[in-house]
């Protein structure tokens, strides 16, 4: 359960309000801006990540392979008939237009990955679970998430033990691959489900589900917008308004 009260990063200055503002603002700009105007959300996302969540830049590695492919494909395959639909309509050659479209697409992807990553890394899990519980009306998300997080190593050990046991009995060869997979899946899942009874008794023995509920960690320590949140809110509003105004 420690994961619920400990943030992934040291970005304590932002609360969930600021994180949601960043996410909404940057995604709105990334979707609605085109051409050179896309530099606005890019600069905005980069500056925000630089100040509040530098780890977000590490998550760009998931599109490192994709971006060159998109750039090369768009440069090679963009045709003359699409030049008018290109944001850089001034480009006369389809290759130049295709390259510019590739750049635009890549910038949009970079903005989206940066902001989603910044959101997930900035917001505390206690606040996130409180947000989800508030939206869904259910009070059980924190319990399920915490239990799943804690029980995972145990289940992985069950899976590995079952895998080794089947292997030692001659399983996972070409002739018996399907039956081995079936035994592995059914045995691991059934063992895990058997554990559920003990887990639910243990939870109820600790008063989970009792009539008097304890407050959610985020509610015990209410979310109050910090000065950084307010600064982000004002800055985001200004950037969005100026972007739409300059775009016309």
């Amino acid at each position, binding site marked *: 359960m420690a994961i619920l009260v400990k943030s992934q990063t040291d970005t304590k200055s932002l609360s969930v309000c600021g994180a949601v503002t960043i996410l909404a603002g940057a995604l709105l700009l990334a979707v609605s801006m085109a051409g050179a105007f896309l530099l606005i959300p890019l600069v905005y996302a980069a500056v925000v990540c630089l100040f509040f969540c530098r780890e977000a830049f590490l998550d760009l590695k*998931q599109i490192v392979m994709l971006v060159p492919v998109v750039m090369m494909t768009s440069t090679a395959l963009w045709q003359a008939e699409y030049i008018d639909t290109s944001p850089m309509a001034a480009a006369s050659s389809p290759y130049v237009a295709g390259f510019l479209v590739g750049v635009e697409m890549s910038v949009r992807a970079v903005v989206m*990955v940066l902001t989603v990553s910044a959101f997930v890394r900035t917001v505390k899990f206690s606040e996130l679970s409180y947000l989800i519980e508030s939206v869904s*009306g259910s009070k059980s998300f924190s319990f399920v998430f915490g239990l799943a997080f804690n029980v995972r190593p145990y289940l992985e050990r069950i899976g590995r033990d079952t895998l080794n046991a089947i292997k030692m009995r001659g399983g996972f060869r070409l002739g018996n691959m399907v039956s081995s997979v079936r035994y592995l899946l059914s045995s691991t899942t059934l063992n895990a489900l058997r554990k559920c009874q003990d887990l639910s008794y243990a939870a109820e023995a600790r008063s989970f589900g009792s009539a008097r509920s304890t407050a959610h960690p985020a509610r015990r320590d209410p979310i109050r917008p910090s000065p950084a949140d307010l600064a982000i809110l004002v800055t985001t509003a200004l950037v969005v308004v100026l972007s739409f105004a300059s775009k016309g």
Partner: protein
Amino acid sequence: MSRIATEPDKNYAETARGQGGRPRGFSTRDLVYIAVLAALWTGSEDILGAQLHAMNLPFTGIPLAAIAVFLMVTGRVLVPKAGSTILMGIVVALLKVLSIGGVVLSPMIAIFMEALVVELTMSVGGATRLASLIGGMLAEMWSFVHPFVIQPLLFGGQMVVIYQRTLSAGSQMLGVAPANAIMIILVLVVLHGVVGIVAGVVGWRFSLRARRILSR
């Protein structure tokens, strides 16, 4: 002490109502089932997914989605209440954030969408075999369609033009008519669907047997 002795039903009702007044219907056992199956799903995504990704094999989504369908259908039959599958999906998607790879956007959305598809299907059709196989089929098909949906979302509408151009250029290069290329894609979609049907039915049959074994 007397409170506990005199109000056991109220305690259960509070849990079942989610302590929020709205009837959610999840008992502690239900929540534990959801958590444990979500943990299994996350384990399969992390261990098997990482291995398959490292091997750079095509269609690595097929076994991963099949296991996900198996676990979702099992969970839905054991906890036949609205919201159980989507709760599982949200937990797995967020647990994925804590895995070694960092915040990986595309698998998170894929996991959530697969859970949403099974949730909708089994909410409409109930925890029946037919709903299980339809839900499994749609979730497995989603794993194939997912990149073609997520990439235009991520990169913008121009991605569709790139797909069209890639399809026609690839057809010309291989000497295949574009209609046949579309046919190949349809065959792949159907193949995914068949695997999903099998996973759904296997999950449904397994859950019935598991329920029998667990009630002993």
